[in-house]
């Protein structure tokens, strides 16, 4: 169904009253729509009717002469011939075919280019996705690293703490390895005398503290002994001043300190106990 507006455009087209753009639009519509083409033909018939209102006039013969001369000068290729009246002219068809081949070639090339571009876009998209993925991994790793750093610090602190605990434990262990022995008086003249021995088997050293021991005679010394079952006789740990006590180190390595004893010996001490035992551990 053609609208009145389209009919008006077609009417103006037939009378040559449209601009170039509108003229092209009407001609395109005629090409696309047979109904539109039929309408234009009807309107042309109506317009041409008006021409019949002009009375016929005989043109001067000079017009025919001029026309004759013009046609004589007219090159034949300016004329439009009907295909039925002329021999088949293959040249336009060949040119058209060539053009078609070229157009198809361009179209195929364009299609290929579009495929390449599409492939490129897909690859770029994949690469971008991969890049995004890598960036996310990098971020995650950085976070993990920071977390690990924090954990590392915590671990270091824990290790430090563990070291401290270990040192403490070692200290405790060291103390655990120290044998404390209380020596009671065996002497009748000093029953209140006391002595304490702290013995560290690892270092083979010990400390002696005394309390209430009377002073030894001028030619006498108190001597400390370590009784180890691995030795047949007590092992000398040295002479000492009963007023101060002091550190001691046995003359032989002590494997097991069963008891400690103090004897009153000649001045300078003895290799084996010679004098009376005045103090003995429990």
């Amino acid at each position, binding site marked *: 169904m053609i609208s009145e507006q389209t009919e008006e455009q077609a009417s103006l087209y037939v009378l040559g009253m449209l601009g170039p753009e509108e003229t092209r639009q009407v001609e395109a519509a005629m090409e696309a729509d047979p109904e539109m083409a039929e309408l234009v033909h009807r309107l042309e018939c*109506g317009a041409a009717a008006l021409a019949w209102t002009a009375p016929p006039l005989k043109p001067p013969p000079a*017009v025919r002469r001029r026309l004759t001369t013009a046609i004589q000068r007219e090159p034949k290729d300016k004329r439009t011939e009907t295909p039925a*009246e002329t021999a088949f002219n293959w040249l336009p068809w060949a040119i058209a075919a060539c053009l078609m081949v070229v157009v198809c070639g361009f179209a195929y090339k364009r299609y290929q280019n579009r495929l390449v571009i599409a492939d490129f876009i897909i690859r770029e998209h994949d690469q971008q996705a991969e890049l995004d993925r890598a960036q996310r991994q990098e971020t995650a790793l950085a976070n993990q690293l920071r977390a690990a750093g924090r954990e590392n610090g915590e671990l270091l602190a824990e290790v430090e703490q563990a070291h401290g605990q270990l040192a403490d434990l070692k200290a405790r262990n060291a103390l655990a390895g120290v044998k404390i022995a209380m020596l009671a008086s065996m002497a009748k003249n000093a029953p209140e005398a006391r002595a304490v021995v702290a013995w560290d088997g690892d270092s083979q050293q010990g400390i002696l503290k005394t309390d209430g021991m009377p002073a030894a005679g001028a030619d006498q010394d108190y001597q400390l002994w370590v009784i180890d079952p691995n030795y047949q006789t007590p092992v000398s740990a040295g002479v000492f001043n009963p007023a101060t006590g002091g550190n001691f180190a046995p003359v032989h390595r002590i494997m097991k300190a069963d008891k400690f004893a103090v004897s009153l010996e000649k001045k300078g001490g003895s290799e084996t106990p010679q004098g009376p035992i005045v103090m003995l551990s429990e």
Partner: protein
Amino acid sequence: MAAEFYSNVSLPIFASIMGNGVAFPAAQDGPARMSREMSSEEPPEAALLRQVSGGDAEAFDELYTRWSPMLYGLLCKILEDPREAEDALQEGFLHIWRKAGSYDARRSSPTTWAYMIFRNKAIDRLRSRERRGKGMERIAEEEPTMAPPVTDPGEDAENQERREAVKEALESIPADQREAVSLAFFSGLTQTEIAEKLGAPLGTIKARIRRGLLRLGDALKGKL
């Protein structure tokens, strides 16, 4: 005098155009010669156009003889200048000589096709003249006055019938539509100029032109 010369020399002149040694028949009046090479179904003028498209100078001569009075009359009516009408007539027939092959019998009758070609060429000249302005008008006024064109009394019965049919069709449409389509067809005025001239809105003028052309087209379908 001019008419005698025209009728005597027409065919030999067009025969000489071809220069191919073909002996054309002597000039004869009227459509007696038009029966050659035509099928019974094909309208005579359509067959002539087909022959012209094949380079048939004799067919072209026949078309000129048949059509030039009505086309020259149209050109004189539009251009109101016999000298320019002659130039337009020559230009129009050259167009037919070159483009006869483009005629499509399915779209229109041969006379409608030819009329629209010559009408458009006349309107182009009219508009071109108006664009050139008053300077050209002054030159035209200084030219020696031409003798008025001679009415052609020899129009065949077929064309007379056509004119009668057109007259009836034009009388059947409203006067305002007739006026609008006549101005649009002959004057070369734009739609706006026609609206101003007739003192009607542009939309009304467009509608009158549309309705007038459609009614004429329907009334004269198959008659032209």
